[in-house]
């Protein structure tokens, strides 16, 4: 199965591509809107600021391609900053794609960035995090999504208070942590994402 990774010019997508290949799919890093629109699963990943990421997506029309997919009920998943891009305005500056409602807020804790391995606490059963409740995964972020609808949250994580760790709503899913950097638990998340995309 082909997985399109939307390339908006933010950092290196090599480790994610390798991890997807290990999950048995064919990753395709692309700036092409048609490819992003047509692939069985489209991912938004990368690092950096929401503002420059959103501008990068708009430059090649990837934002419209992603919105059109979701309207047609076809799966889009966001990883780390990619998850934040699913939402609306960010305190970091800039606007996300608005595929899910709610802002992105700065993490308020004694130590920011929220950096390191932390434990997923499932808030409801989901395909994306099947078998992952209580597992440790790797986080590295200073901002986090704040969904308007609690129902989209599938897991939280505790860092001087609860942060949303993952969301799933219809054809849209997101994880704030880095599955490609989360050892066996992360590999399972990627396999789950692929399985979810086939049934989403």
């Amino acid at each position, binding site marked *: 199965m082909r997985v399109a990774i939307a390339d908006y010019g933010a950092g290196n997508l090599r480790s994610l591509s390798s991890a997807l290949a290990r999950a048995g799919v064919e990753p395709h890093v692309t700036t092409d809107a048609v490819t992003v629109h047509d692939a069985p699963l489209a991912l938004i990943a990368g690092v950096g600021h929401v503002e420059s990421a959103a501008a990068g997506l708009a430059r090649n029309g990837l934002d419209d391609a992603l919105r059109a997919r979701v309207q047609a009920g076809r799966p889009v998943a966001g990883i780390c900053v990619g998850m934040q891009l699913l939402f609306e305005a960010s305190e970091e500056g800039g606007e996300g794609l608005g595929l899910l409602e709610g802002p992105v807020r700065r993490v308020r804790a004694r130590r920011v960035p929220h950096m390191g391995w932390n434990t997923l606490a499932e808030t409801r059963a989901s395909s994306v995090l099947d078998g992952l409740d209580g597992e440790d995964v790797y*986080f590295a972020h200073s901002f986090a999504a704040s969904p308007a609808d609690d129902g989209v949250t599938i897991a939280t994580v505790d860092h001087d208070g609860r942060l949303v760790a993952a969301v799933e709503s219809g054809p849209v899913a997101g994880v704030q942590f880095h599955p490609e950097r989360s050892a066996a638990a992360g590999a399972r998340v990627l396999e789950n994402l692929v399985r979810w995309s086939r049934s989403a």
Partner: protein
Amino acid sequence: MVKKRVIPCLDVADGRVVKGINFRNLREMGEPVELARRYSELGADELVFLDITATLEGRGPILDVIGRAADELTIPFTAGGGVTGVDDARGLLLAGADKVAVNRAAFDEPGILTTLAAEFGSQAVVVAIDARAGEVVTHAGREPRGRDAVDWAREAVERGAGEILLTSIDADGTRAGYDLDLTGAVADAVDVPVIASGGAGEASHLADAFAAGAEAALVASIVHERPDRLPELKTELREAGWAIR
């Protein structure tokens, strides 16, 4: 709650892992990515690759190591050592490093931290600070810079660093424990995670660094000598009540 991290550090010269005392008597330890994978299997939470190649012309091999590490590792890693400027740092991140550690180049030109944070996010930008008796030193400990390490740490964070790799030159290689005064003073002064480095000999030393405020502890010689020491350290820390993966 975020777990405390134990981070093996690999010194790399010309694409091979080496071990030596004060950069002399370098002994080859093996292929970096192979060794890294072994540490990953043994439960390393994260890794650091420090390029100790003396010349800029010799930097090719580290980029190859970083690229293969990005492909093969399933835990995060930082690349650093001898970063000369923003292009050098960017090169390591674009090659696939999750974070880049910048030492002297950041001290000499702190704007580098801001530039890198704007492009890659501050979670990808580590400022490496070496200190002796609380003073910043550069050039592998040879040049005292007349600036208080705590003060520089605070500025580096304001400039965009998202993590501090804090090495005590006094404690380095002693196996007598981390410099707890320095670690505590820096951890108190900043709101980003601090990685304690230099002096690890036993699990209680890591525990002391965590108690002083470090979020993570770097280990080198004690695990290179016997890699199975790594899971033992983590077990001992867990048994002592620390939140360890």
